[in-house]
């Protein structure tokens, strides 16, 4: 039975649906999203998927080329590294280190950034001013330099790198959240809600945050590409993940030794980092375009 309509009802799609409507037709962005989903499932499911043990050395099979070359083996589709470990398994595991940990770092940092940003955005006065200036200071210090300091204090290692990256990302999140909130506070509906008698807390949770989450996601994707690049760069420099950890950057550094004999051991991890970051950026760009279009309509 058809529902009875008593009066004319404007058919409004939800904002999320609208966003998707503008996002999906962008082929590149859509492609990026698909890639991201694949990478994400890889990061989570890797332990059950790898064809070989990523850390198992096999001295009989050193530097086997990928299977599309004449001397390659079918059971090692991407060949082996200089200790006879299966490259494909290592690359798959790398997804959970380089990409998976980057996501965790961004989420953690975003959460803390949200709290601090909200505190700073909702407050006024000298305290807030000092806090903001400190933030500006932190924003200008290069993230790698900050990571170096943290690694120097805590010692090299993947976990310490993650702390360093979280800390390095934090200022931009606080900054972003603060700006987003400041923007919201100017809106008329916020004033209206205030006039209704809402207190600061209610204002924050029922009006401001729901209206800023898209911006947060956008910030998150930008930070994610930074985080992936930073984890890999620190691994490459030998102050992040240590060998034999199958982190992509560390894998490149490890394989540099065999770059002449087995260029694929350097090329493939780099390609994966590139593809990951590209996918993240494609999605980020697509989101931004979609949001802009939605606003314009």
């Amino acid at each position, binding site marked *: 039975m058809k529902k009875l309509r008593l009066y004319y009802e404007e058919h409004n799609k939800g904002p999320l649906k609208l966003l998707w409507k503008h996002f999906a037709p962008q082929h590149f962005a859509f492609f990026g999203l698909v890639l991201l989903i694949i990478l994400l499932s890889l990061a989570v499911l890797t332990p059950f998927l790898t064809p070989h043990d990523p850390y198992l*050395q096999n*001295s009989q099979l*050193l530097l086997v080329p990928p299977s599309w070359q004449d001397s390659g083996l079918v059971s090692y589709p991407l060949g082996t590294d*200089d*200790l*006879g470990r299966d490259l494909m398994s290592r690359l798959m595991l790398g997804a959970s280190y380089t990409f998976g940990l980057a996501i965790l770092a961004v989420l953690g940092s975003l959460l803390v950034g949200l709290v601090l940003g909200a505190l700073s955005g909702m407050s006024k006065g000298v305290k807030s001013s000092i806090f903001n200036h400190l933030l500006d200071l932190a924003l200008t210090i290069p993230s790698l330099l900050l990571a170096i300091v943290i690694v120097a204090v805590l010692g090299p290692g993947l976990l310490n790198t993650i702390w360093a990256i979280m800390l390095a990302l934090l200022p931009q999140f606080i900054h972003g959240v603060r700006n987003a909130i400041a923007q919201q506070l100017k809106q008329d509906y916020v004033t209206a809600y205030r006039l209704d008698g809402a207190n600061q807390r209610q204002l924050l949770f029922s009006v401001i945050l729901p209206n800023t989450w898209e911006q947060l996601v956008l910030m998150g994707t930008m930070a994610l590409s930074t985080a992936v690049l930073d984890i890999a760069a620190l691994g490459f420099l030998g102050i992040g993940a240590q*060998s*034999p950890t199958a982190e992509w950057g560390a894998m490149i550094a490890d394989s*540099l*030794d*065999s*770059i*002449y*004999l087995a260029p694929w051991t350097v090329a493939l991890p780099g390609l994966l980092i590139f593809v990951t970051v590209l996918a993240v950026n494609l999605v980020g760009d697509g989101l931004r375009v979609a949001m802009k279009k939605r606003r314009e309509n």
Partner: protein
Amino acid sequence: MNIYQRLTFVCLTALLTHACQPDRNNPGGTGLVYCVEGSPESFNPQLVTSGTTIDAISQHLYDRLLDINAQTGELLPALASSWQISSDGLSYRFQLRENVAFHHTDYFKPSRPLNAEDVVFTFNRILLPEHPFHQTATEYPYFDSMEWRQLVAEVKAISAYEVEFRLNKPDSSFLSTLATDFAAVLSAEYGAKLQAENKLPDLDHLPVGTGPFLFRHYQKDVLIRYYRHPQHWRQGSNLQQLVIDIVPDSTKRVAKLLTHECDVAPIPRLAELQLLSKRQDFVVDVQTSMNVGYWAFNTQKPPLNNVKVRQALALAVNKQNILQAVYFGQAEQADSLLPPNSWAYQKPQLTQSYDPQKARALLAEAGFAKGFSLDIWAMPVQRLYNPNALKMAELMQADLARIGVKARIVSYEWNTFRRKLTQAEHDSVLIGWSADNADPDNFLRPLLSCAAAVSGSNRANWCDEHFDALLQQAVNTADLNERRSFYLQAQQYQAQQMPLMPIAHSKRFQVRSSNISGVAINPYGGVNFAMAGKH
């Protein structure tokens, strides 16, 4: 402004037409770039033992009383034109070459050629605590490990061009020691000048010698620049400049060879040898070498003070694997410290082969059935005897896991690494030794004697009276057969006690651009550019 415009124009054309590669290896004369793996620790070979330092300084800056023939191991006259040994073997007399000029540099202008005074000055620095320069160095590691101060009673000038060494006891390896790269001859006149100016440490930083090249400039971790020594006593090289380019990373070293930024490079990296030897523009020189890469156990630390544990660990490691993955088949498996081309080598009866079963049994006997955890220190640098210690450690880590030993790989930056090693903070370490002369004593004494445990080159910190006695008996006799039998006993005792596990004897490789000739490498370390030329 005109000159800048012209320069820009020239640059652009040069950049666009890449064929116009500027003759960058030939600025203002002929020059040669030798790419080495590390910075020298000092500019005085008396103070060091590292092969890297010796390669970078010794043969270029200094001459020795005697030289060694690289092929036969026979001693040749150098600064000493002739020598006599007394019948009791206690006195050695050397007649010096005349008109040997010292380097003329910015910081020192010599007024006289080499004479007996310089030789006395040089060796007394090592021997006499009251020598003005003796205290500026904390140790003379090579001479200390050879127990030179107990051995040499006196060095004195007989005449302006004759020197006598008096020994306390006969020593058949004495002449070989004088021919090593460590026994470089310094200038007494320069010493006097530094003393007068109260700049004693400069003796080891701003070198003055008689060698084919003179010191110009040093920038740590970047380069050493030498100029040709125009008055060198040997007719030699037509090179005006020798630059030692310090490139610690072997991948970069190969890259620089390929782009001809390096003319000559010693490459302990064996992976690319095939690649390079196929190319027309490179020549790979191969030389059998006297070296050994080994895994030393700190025998002072439990549980490594237990012989059975050490034997078990040695049995658990698959050396064949290491030879394949680390040395790319370009090395021989080591069963003894002495390489097979040493005259005292004999395959020990107790050869260790890979046997994890037996290893586990031995561990159980020693009371470690459940295994234990162990640090493996892997040196962060590439050396002839061990081209990639970190990779080796990773391989061993997997091997040891099979007998329940949990290995942790430890590495520090090289200077820190050595400092901590000297303080014996390690459990076990992957390191090695390149011999300085053909004498077997040069392996066993510096690596395993009690004296070396004090001076620091004995990384196992192993001090065993029986072993030391064997070494002493061996040098006390001049009879080769008798010496050989003592060394054989020593090798067997070492194989049984296992203070260290020999892993491999590597060949020595050097790659040079094919337009370079006359570069001599020898089995006892050191590289000589005195005769080198560029076409």
